[in-house]
């Protein structure tokens, strides 16, 4: 990380597989870096204070709240956002499962839930129910009552197992 002006920092962040070099304010939040600098508005800001999970992204394989992380903390790391989950044509099995289980209503929480689910399944392809609940316990949804989200995760697990696919 090269320091330029006191408040501007050069960072190299891999976003959805592409390497980005940017000069950014050192107090810029990761969520704002993604939304404002990269126009990746799929990552949502529901509270800005680590209470809702709408801003969840995957940072070097771990689901994190991007609203309470500085973008400079991601320097040299790899960030995956909802925009990187499908290839623009074929959906990821988790996305398919969310559609088939009816896990999406208003959809505002959906990117966060999908990222949390993806991070979980990458590490643990066959999680127990309690492990799913724990992994998604930091994501708030006000519409679905969570049941169909839980169904979606189970569905994704089953389908990915059948297809021998990795998250």
């Amino acid at each position, binding site marked *: 990380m090269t320091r330029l002006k006191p408040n501007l920092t050069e960072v190299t962040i891999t976003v959805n597989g592409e390497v980005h070099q940017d000069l950014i304010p050192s107090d810029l939040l990761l969520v704002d870096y993604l939304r404002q600098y990269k126009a990746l508005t799929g990552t949502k800001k*529901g509270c800005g204070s680590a209470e809702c999970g709408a801003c969840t992204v995957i940072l070097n394989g771990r689901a994190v709240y991007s609203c309470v992380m500085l973008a400079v903390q991601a320097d040299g790391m790899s960030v995956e956002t909802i925009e990187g989950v499908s290839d623009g044509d074929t*959906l990821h099995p988790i996305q398919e499962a969310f559609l088939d289980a009816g896990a999406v*209503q208003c959809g505002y929480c959906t990117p966060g839930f999908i990222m949390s689910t993806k991070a979980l399944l990458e590490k643990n392809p066959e999680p127990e129910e309690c492990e799913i609940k724990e992994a998604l316990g930091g994501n708030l949804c006000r519409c679905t009552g969570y049941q169909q989200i839980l169904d979606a995760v189970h569905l994704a697990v089953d389908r990915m197992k059948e297809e021998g696919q990795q998250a």
Partner: protein
Amino acid sequence: MKETRYIGKPARRVDGRAKVTGQAKFSDDVILPRTRYAKVLHSRYAHAKITKLDVSKAKELPGVAAVFTAKDIPNNDKYFRKGTMGDTWVLAEEYVRYIGDAVAFVVADDEETAEKALSLIEAEYEPLPPVVNLREAKKAELLARADREGNVSMPLEVSRGDVEADFAKADVILSDRYVFPSLSQLHLEPNSVTAVYEGGKLTVYCASQVWFHTREDIAAVVGLPEKDIILRPMTIGGAFGARNDQPLPIIASLLAVLTKSTVKMTNTRLEEFVAARPSLQMDIDITVAADKEGHLLSKKTWLLSSHGIHASDNDAVTAIACLRLDNNYKFNSVYVDGTGLYLNHTPTAAYRGFGNPQMHWAFESMLDELAEKLGMDPTEIRMLNYHEGGEVGIHGFIYNNCGIKECMRRAKEIVNWDEKKKHKVPGKGIGCASLIHCSGSRAGKPEFSGTSAWARLESSGAVTILAGECEMGQGIVNVCALIAGEELGVDPLSVKVIMGDTEMCPFSTGTNGSKLTSNLGNAVLFACRDLKKQLCDALREQCGYGPVEMRDGGIYYENNGEFVMSLEQAAYEACCKFSGRPFMGLGRFNPPSELGDRTGYGNLAPSYVFGVQMAEVTVHEDGSFTVDRMVSVHDIGRVIDIRNATGQVYGGVMQAFGAATTESLDLNKEGVYQANTILEYKAPTLLDMPHIDVGFVETHDQYGPYGAKAIAEPPIIAMAPAIGNAIYDAVGVRVHEAPITPQRLREAILEKKKRAAAGEEA
């Protein structure tokens, strides 16, 4: 039931793909060039006199375009919709009257500068005692508003039948008091608006449940004719009634006009608590009269409800709380005295259920008390007093069908009620409650009932539905797509549904009162039939094919059923024959419903929905408890979209569970909400949620599309009292004020023990 291809079958949502890929654009995702950012300076006091307001330093800050205080706002007191005008203001002038009251606006080049400017505004206040409690507000020793005589914002007194005579002949009379808190709808997406002003015209990107009302409100405040204002709906991250009446689209529009620029505003989560439109707290006294067999004879209700600092949808909410539930049981007579009160907190408004959850909390709890007194099973006393299809409720609801008894039977079966009642396990309890709501309601809007839609077929064969209503997550776009798919024989996922764009869509009164499945569903159905007829007529006559019909994505000869051509080809040929015009089917549905009279009597909706909700709980001596399971069975007519309907029930039940156990917007003495963050507010997470079983009783509604009725609001209505009743069943103790926190339950248990001990001593 008629065999259908799409109706009632599991289907993906038409808007689903955009939502799972992050492509759906919500209001805060709007990024436009040359956008300025505006921020609001909110009052830190619930009630105070403004002694100093100096914005000069803020104005001087580089990057600040403008700072506004009350004197800079034309028509500062002409705020919001017609009915409430004069009761409200844009910026506080002499007094601030709630925490969150807007004192000044800052418009700056970027968000940070706007925030910095806020901190440079010098505001001083002389604090006044706030009114934060309903009973105190009623006494009116203190006033919430110096410009009002008392604290009453709305009185309502209704009497039907001979109440005193019925009380005189009652075998049992029971009285009790219940309190239900103010709640945050907590839609996950904070309000955000981008308003673009250019050359006398305004375009507003935002969320609203009532597009045309919002346009009207904006017009009144900014002083532009409605025809020069366009509202462009963004994807809406939940609403639940809260976006019936939101100040932000109006404020951002005003600032865009005043600064002749593009202005963006996004609420913080804190603003979503203090300056939003939460639900009404209600404090309810009920006295009920019954005969010894358990027939309900009469009921007297005194209700106080918190309207916050000014009128909003709260008048209508209080009215519905006062009346709606009475229609669910065969009363001879009822009396209600309802009072909406001014308090020093943000104005209250609709939340899913529209006043019904508050009254259900009170009366459905009371009904269990009555059943106990009469030695009856709680399900039995309800079954005895339910209406049947063909009857009329006491405030004028006409039931063309009513599946409530079947709901009760089904719910009992699911939880194995009779067995569980017979074999009681210490600490375990089971409870029920029932509910009534409207389907296709007039929803209090005076203009007209019903709604309209267009079904458009382009030369390419693309089908688009246009309606002026709102998709806020509830899935009405899918109901429209499924109906269009069914009627036109096309894949519902190929149907585009455009909702609420005020430039393109038909006028509507707004999306509330669980009215869309009935009303818009029909409008879409009729629009599609009209489209089909127009196209087939054109093919037969102008294009010379003779009698043809449209089905399965194609055109077929009527006489022998042979395939003529694809829909795409037909659309193209017919369009060419008519000089390129698209085929537009127009559908309108005018339901047989009426606004209530002055006493609230009237058939407010074409149809009514019913349901029974049950809960199972385990309660411990220390007051801690778990809800082990919830069951929600609904009569919603024919189910159109099974996945979404089920999802609506899960979501509504979850919100009721939150209200019953953890959520509340209690004020402290200074008028500060005890909860100002999501964590403090304690909305349920996945880790908190008990298992939910959903059941549908499919009646056939003569007015609904394919026989369908509504489902959006019902699931939230009666689960809280069901949980309260289950807790009573477990430990014989009732917490009268929701939420039932472990502390409150523990106190009630201790109180009961104390009374028992005192009783033994005596």
